[in-house]
């Protein structure tokens, strides 16, 4: 099917969300099924010795993961093709960048976020279906480090470039909404990629470089996240009203972000643990992040309950709706 909708960086949210579902399914299988060292692969699952209830539990999960892995990879290729065409349109990127009112240009960060997600999909769910690839994971660590470096560089470049537009004179930041958090989301996804290298690579040099860069990413991302969440929450409370219906789902962006920052910090803490004397901080970090995700998710459902009751089902498409996934 050909997409007629004009290209917008927020289109990348579709591939990002598909990658998220695939990765969640992988995460479940990886931790639920005993397997050899390294990421779980299809070869590790002995269907023949499983009970019917176990097969009923795991088989649909594998199918869901396959569908969303393919969706992530196909959409990424298609959107990259559209992105290149968009960048070639004279003035298109510049016009988009300068449109900072209501943080409308924050969508640019969906591109970096989605590409980071695709790297993780490639390592985990894609590697699940191609066991040979998973067995030769170490050969992919150097290219992965290079891609991680490119994503981080692009992210810093975009943060500086677009950050200037948000704080330019004449921009009314009180009209900003939770879509503004997409850059912090991208920092979380890039940190997840970096911490994945830290967790998987056996080369000390690669691990060391990835760990330092991930720590930097986590640090910058956390500062941005805390500042923006504080600012937006204050503004919403001060205004005493919810944002317009189409941007309401953006409240849910905090949920995946909490998990991403928590998981990346958990992996980095594990790397630093020998020096820290194994303080148990890692477990606290990830538990706290999951608790925050659940509490925020439930709180967001409560705050926008009317949106679900009377608006969502019949509403037209709005990009922030990907935030639900």
């Amino acid at each position, binding site marked *: 099917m050909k997409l007629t909708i004009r290209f917008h960086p927020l289109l990348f949210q579709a591939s990002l969300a598909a990658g998220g579902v695939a990765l969640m399914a992988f995460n479940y299988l990886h931790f639920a099924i005993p397997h050899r060292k390294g990421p779980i692969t299809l070869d590790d699952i002995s269907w023949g010795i499983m009970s019917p209830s176990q097969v009923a539990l795991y088989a649909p999960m594998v199918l869901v993961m396959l569908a969303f892995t393919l969706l992530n990879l196909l959409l990424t290729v298609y959107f990259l093709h559209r992105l290149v065409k968009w960048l070639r349109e004279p003035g298109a990127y510049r016009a988009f960048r300068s449109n900072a009112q209501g943080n409308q240009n924050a969508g640019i960060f969906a591109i970096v976020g989605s590409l980071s997600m695709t790297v993780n999909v490639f390592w985990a769910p894609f590697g699940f279906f191609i066991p040979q690839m998973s067995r030769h994971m170490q050969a992919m660590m150097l290219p992965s480090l290079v891609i991680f470096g490119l994503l981080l560089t692009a992210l810093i470049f975009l943060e500086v470039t677009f950050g200037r537009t948000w704080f330019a004179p004449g921009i009314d930041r009180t009209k900003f909404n939770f879509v503004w958090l997409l850059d912090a989301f991208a920092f979380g996804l890039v940190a997840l990629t970096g911490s994945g290298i830290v967790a998987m690579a056996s080369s000390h040099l690669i691990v060391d470089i990835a760990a330092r860069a991930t720590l930097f990413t986590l640090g910058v991302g956390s500062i941005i996240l805390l500042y923006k969440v504080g600012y937006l929450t204050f503004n919403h409370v001060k205004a005493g009203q919810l944002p317009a219906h189409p941007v309401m789902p953006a409240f849910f962006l905090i949920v995946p972000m909490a998990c991403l920052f928590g998981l990346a910090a958990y992996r980095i803490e594990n790397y630093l643990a020998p020096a820290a004397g194994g303080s148990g901080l890692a477990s606290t970090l990830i538990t706290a992040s999951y608790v925050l995700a659940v509490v925020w998710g439930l709180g967001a459902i409560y705050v926008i309950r009317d949106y679900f009751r009377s608006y969502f089902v019949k509403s037209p*498409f709005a990009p922030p709706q990907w935030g639900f996934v």
Partner: protein
Amino acid sequence: MYGFFYQYTALATLNYVSVYLGAIMYGLVMSKFLVANQVVKEVAVA
């Protein structure tokens, strides 16, 4: 990682349920997106 995650059955359940919830929400949002795309296509043809 195993011990950490799966000593909490609640986390495993949450993970399992969230995959299907995510897939359902994805289907809903994607269908809205395709409808919006169809509207754009019809407007372009008209």
